[in-house]
């Protein structure tokens, strides 16, 4: 397990912590012992991540295309946040006290829908409508279409600005709900992301956690050839955030990082960011080893192979 804690010497003003929030019918209802990364927690989230990947492959096959590579890469992050961290009520997606999960990267919707199905917010059988006419699950995530989709992402660099407003608004109204924003490393190109990073620190939004999928790939190629965003860790640190960088495909590391972020969470405090290095196509060797592309091409006869490789890998790991 690799968790790198970049804890600044600056003291977090941890007043009104969110540790003792009322139990909801969400992820923590099963009494997961936050703070201790047990094999049980890892197994539970790994199983959820496997199902999310499986759903994503099925959705990709129906559509014949899609951001399957990103969904596979981000599945562990999505499984961790939905399966272990977020408070929500599956039957009441607008429950006022819910934690908010904001998907900035609208094109990751395929992975998010799979996570929403895993969370019981969207029926699993609805996933096959992904990207179809009149579906509630459009190719790019939109709040007006899908239960559990808090914002309309897609135009990158918006999510964190909205998250700042939500965190301010929730705190002002006395809510101890937390706000999570899922970003990609490509999104770090956008100046608005850094406006929001400054704003979150200025307003001491300890109820805000950003999670960045660093897959080192964007539309025109590798991130370091498109617009160099590294050193990413130092950037967030210098913006005043509680910064951790982890292997985003290692569930144990993710759980530990999210636990650390949760321990930091406060109505007034330092915002948290978890930088997650991930691999596009993770879990399916055929795709992991394919030339990396933002929009990955998968032939009609390859989908079944993908599923078989995913299952073999998961079962091999589970039995290991």
């Amino acid at each position: 397990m690799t968790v790198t804690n970049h804890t600044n010497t600056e003291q977090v003003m941890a007043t009104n912590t969110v540790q003792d929030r009322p139990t909801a019918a969400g992820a923590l209802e099963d009494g997961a012992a936050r703070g201790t990364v047990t094999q049980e927690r890892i197994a539970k989230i790994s199983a959820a991540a496997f199902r999310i990947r499986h759903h994503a492959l099925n959705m990709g096959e129906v559509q014949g295309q899609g951001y399957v590579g990103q969904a596979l890469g981000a599945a562990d992050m999505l499984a961790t946040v939905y399966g272990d961290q977020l408070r929500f009520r599956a039957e009441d997606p607008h429950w006022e006290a819910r934690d908010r999960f904001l998907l900035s990267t609208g094109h990751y919707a395929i992975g998010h829908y799979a996570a929403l199905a895993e969370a019981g917010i969207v029926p699993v059988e609805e996933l096959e409508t992904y990207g179809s006419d009149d579906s509630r699950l459009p190719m790019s995530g939109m709040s007006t279409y899908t239960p559990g989709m808090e914002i309309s992402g897609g135009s990158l660099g918006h999510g964190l600005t909205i998250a700042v407003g939500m965190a301010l608004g929730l705190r002002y109204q006395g809510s101890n709900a937390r706000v999570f924003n899922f970003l990609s490393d490509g999104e770090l190109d956008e100046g608005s992301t850094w406006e929001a990073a400054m704003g979150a620190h200025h307003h001491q939004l300890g109820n805000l956690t950003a999670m960045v999928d660093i897959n080192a790939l964007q539309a025109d190629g590798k991130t370091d050839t498109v617009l160099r965003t590294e050193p990413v860790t130092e950037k967030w640190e210098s913006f005043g955030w509680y910064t951790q960088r982890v292997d985003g495909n290692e569930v144990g590391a993710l759980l530990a990082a999210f636990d650390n972020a949760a321990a930091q969470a406060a109505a007034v405090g330092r915002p948290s960011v978890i930088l997650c290095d991930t691999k596009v196509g993770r879990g399916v060797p055929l795709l992991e080893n394919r030339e990396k592309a933002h929009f990955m091409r998968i032939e009609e006869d390859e989908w079944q192979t993908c599923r078989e490789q995913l299952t073999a890998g998961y079962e091999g790991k589970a039995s290991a």
Partner: protein
Amino acid sequence: MSTTTEAPDTAAAAAAPAKPKLKTSAMIASFADPGQKTSSAPFGHALVKAAQENDKIVGLTADLGKYTDMHIFAKAFPERFFQMGMAEQLLFGAAAGLAETGLVPFASTYSVFAARRAYDFLCLDAAEPNLNVNIVGGLPGLTTGYGPSHQATEDMAIFRGMPNLTIVDPCDSIDIEQAVPQLAASDGPTYLRLLRGNVPTVLDEYDYTFELGKAKVLRGGNDVVFISSGLMTMRALQAAKALAAHNVDVAVVHTPTIKPFDAETILAEINTDRLAVTLENHSVVGGLFETVASAVVTAGVGKRVVPVALPDQFLDAGALPTLHDRYGLAVDRIVAKVLAELG
């Protein structure tokens, strides 16, 4: 006799003609006429009043609180005011986030920054989900002499294409005072073309109340009908009085809501034998004139409409009276244009 008491250069200076006093312009110069009745910071006070009755109202700005009258609200409700810094994308993204939590944000900056710089954020984060985000834009049209960086001459043209957005172009302090609570009460996003500082009070002399989405006839007239919005309604009323001296009888219809547009009232007024003139503090492209023209054509009314509007160009820097005269917004220029049209 002594000739040594006067130094030669002093003598030269005394002989030179007095240096003419230059016309200058402040960033936020008032467009009120000398001696005109005004009201101080009507938006700020109206927002405070609305917030006293609605605890969901919050205010935010992007380092322009003092220049958009938001400082009045910030002082009255410091815990309900959020300073977002000179970051307009954050300002409006955060405003959408606040609205997502059930609050009613009023977010202020200059119109140029709201319309040009933050459009994507307003469009996708506020308008698409139809959130109650209220944009307050200072220096609309030609209300500063600072040149194109600050003159929002095309703000309505930019914003009119945004679905769900309500656009209000108030004339005076009365309009602003009455519009603010209605903007807060309306569900979707709104854009207010802010008049700030000492704002003229004009409409109290007429049988008038602001109603969101409604145009109102301020005065009748048999020869000409003015359709106007914003501060140009004030100029329209002044021009109508001046034209009376030329035996020209002018009606004035004030249409402070540009979108949704009260086409019914406007068409009834336009579809007559009178000369129809639109007056707006905005480019001739994409503002009131084209809104009216679109309604006229859509209804199949064969009617010429004469625009009084800013030209489709980047405007000069300078003093406001100079520029209003140069670009045709001054009363004298309106009068001359109407007389020329009437032949």
